[in-house]
């Protein structure tokens, strides 16, 4: 492809460090084995999203997908690596350009109750940022708001209401309206439908698809729900304990998953068609990100683990056109 990806992450890592307080520092000097606690939430991630694409990001607790989403949205700073927007390093931009780019990347959150300020009216929640950033003139704001709300399936007459007067699905729509109001190009959806009932989830997902067509949006869709991700994404990244373990176009991933973790995940997702029996699942707990296993993070639970898996971190390698997987087993051909 000739045009640079809309968003590209190169070697992004994020470490959360809990520093030692004075007492612990003294203990350390006296020879205690107290160490700083470091959580490697995200470890050397390479990710690309082309314009107009929907990329799904899937993983379980501790995989770092939410942290990665927040890094993309600009809420968190990465510890290492860089992020580019249309080929430009976002940290190297001039302040005005950097602000413009930051506005182009927006986020929609999981919890419809906590993501809206309970003491602000809908029209302020949605209308504040466009006014502050000069996207809309004060005289035109009311019409602009009505337009945005209608586009999200909300009645503009409810502008004066407070969030608690809406249902979960409606609140999520308000969150979407808020993101749309600043005219973004790229939206990070962090488990945006996880807290919704199935029937409302369908409505909101359809809204996402419609907006994508109408406004030419690009999405990074973070979710733990494989069914939803399969339906909406063009390409999927699977993460485990801070690392990307596999990525492929959606159909290819679901037809023939390569990485053992992906295989386990796909097999263990409950399906409507599977009746009266549960397959024996992969054993073991998800390790704590505070103390991840050495080498390949998945080796303690992997049915095909070898000695090499314990020692060496597998690199993300291309196994077919457009498909990447981080597993030593692929090397044995």
């Amino acid at each position, binding site marked *: 492809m000739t045009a640079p990806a809309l968003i590209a992450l190169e070697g992004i890592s994020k470490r959360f460090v809990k520093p030692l307080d004075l007492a612990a520092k003294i203990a350390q000097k006296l020879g205690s084995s107290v160490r700083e606690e470091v959580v490697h939430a995200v470890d050397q991630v390479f990710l690309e999203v082309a314009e107009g694409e929907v990329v799904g990001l899937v993983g379980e607790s501790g995989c770092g997908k939410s942290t990665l989403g927040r890094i993309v949205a600009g809420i968190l700073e990465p510890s290492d690596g860089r992020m580019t927007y249309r080929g430009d390093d976002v940290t190297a931009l001039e302040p005005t350009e950097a602000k413009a780019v930051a506005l182009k990347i927006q986020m929609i959150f999981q919890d419809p109750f906590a993501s809206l300020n309970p003491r602000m009216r809908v029209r302020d929640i949605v209308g504040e940022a466009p006014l502050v950033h000069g996207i809309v003139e004060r005289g035109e704001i009311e019409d602009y708001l009505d337009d945005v709300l209608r586009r999200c399936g909300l009645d503009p007459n409810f502008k004066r209401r407070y969030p608690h007067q809406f249902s979960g699905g409606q609140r999520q729509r308000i969150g979407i309206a808020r993101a749309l109001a600043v005219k973004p190009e790229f939206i990070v959806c962090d488990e945006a439908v996880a807290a919704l009932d199935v029937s*409302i989830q*369908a409505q909101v997902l359809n809204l996402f*698809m419609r907006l994508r067509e109408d406004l030419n949006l690009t999405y990074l869709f973070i979710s733990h729900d494989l069914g939803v991700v399969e*339906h909406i994404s063009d390409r999927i990244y699977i993460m485990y304990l801070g690392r990307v373990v596999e990525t492929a176009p959606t159909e290819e991933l679901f037809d023939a998953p390569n990485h053992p973790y992906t295989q386990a*995940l796909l097999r263990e997702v409950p*399906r*409507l068609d*599977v009746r009266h029996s549960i397959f024996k699942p992969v054993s073991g707990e998800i390790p704590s990100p505070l103390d991840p296993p050495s080498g390949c993070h998945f080796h303690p639970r992997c049915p095909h683990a070898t000695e090499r898996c314990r020692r060496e971190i597998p690199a993300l390698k291309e196994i077919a056109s457009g498909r990447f997987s981080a597993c030593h087993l692929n090397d044995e051909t």
Partner: protein
Amino acid sequence: MTRGPVTLRVDGLRTHFLTKVGVVKAVDDVSFQVGRGEVLGLVGESGSGKSVTGFSVLGLVDPPGRIVGGRILFWGHDLVALPEAEWRDLRGSKIAMIFQDPMMTLNPVLRIDTQMIEAVLAHDKVGRETARQRARDALGQVGISSPDERLRAYPHQFSGGMRQRVAIAIALLNRPDLIIADEPTTALDVTIQAQILYEVQKLCRETGTALIWITHDLSVVAGLADRICVMYAGRIVEEGGIDAVLDTPLHPYTKGLIGSVPSRNRRGVPLSQIPGMTPSLLNLPEGCAFRERCPRADEACHAMPEMTVPSVDRQVRCFHPHDEAIG
């Protein structure tokens, strides 16, 4: 109908909440039964009344809520009129409950063994060593390795999945005849959920415990349950064997719900969706609560539909159910 002896039979249960703003009919004329070793899936979205049904069976409904009608027959005895002392005997011994948040079961300041031994001794006058042995066995039953170490730990030292397993073990301690599980795996990861579902299914088959699994996730119920009840706005709208209901749903709501699941839709095509929202329980439309969202509704639906039995082992509450042959 249920094969084998019936453990629990709920008949016309009504649980209403008398709040400042009006009467909320959380559970309105709910009837179902569960037999020995059977798994019943109680499925519904938020506001459907499924959790309140579970709480009602255990007598855990607090004011302003009250059971205002119906019968709950446990091995033939009606629980509704039971005095509190007898309820306490039943709870935790013959009927147990598992909650969505395991911290509702586990006391954060007590060790696991203290809590489990206490749960045993509350119902059975045995020695502490015997109680400890039972606790160890129960942990083994739910697939927890090295139970002796785990017994000495505190809840906060466990992950979410492990805590839920301990909560299930506590439920199993006194060999209950019936377990009511209220969304126990909703907050858990896929792989951990799969482990717990596997253990629970094995358990029910081996011990003959009846299980009511309350959830909004149809896919979980598909693999786990033998029978399913679908609830909407406090009423059961459809009931039947799991294959029958999921393959040929009769009620438009069930059909719409199944249709909204992403895996039932083709990629890239908009998901089929049920229009509108669940009505407020304070302001239910008269007659069928689903009629404002139903593609098949007409004037007849202004009256309250009763449960009908269109074929063996299937019930539906609808004036215009889908045809079983076509589905």
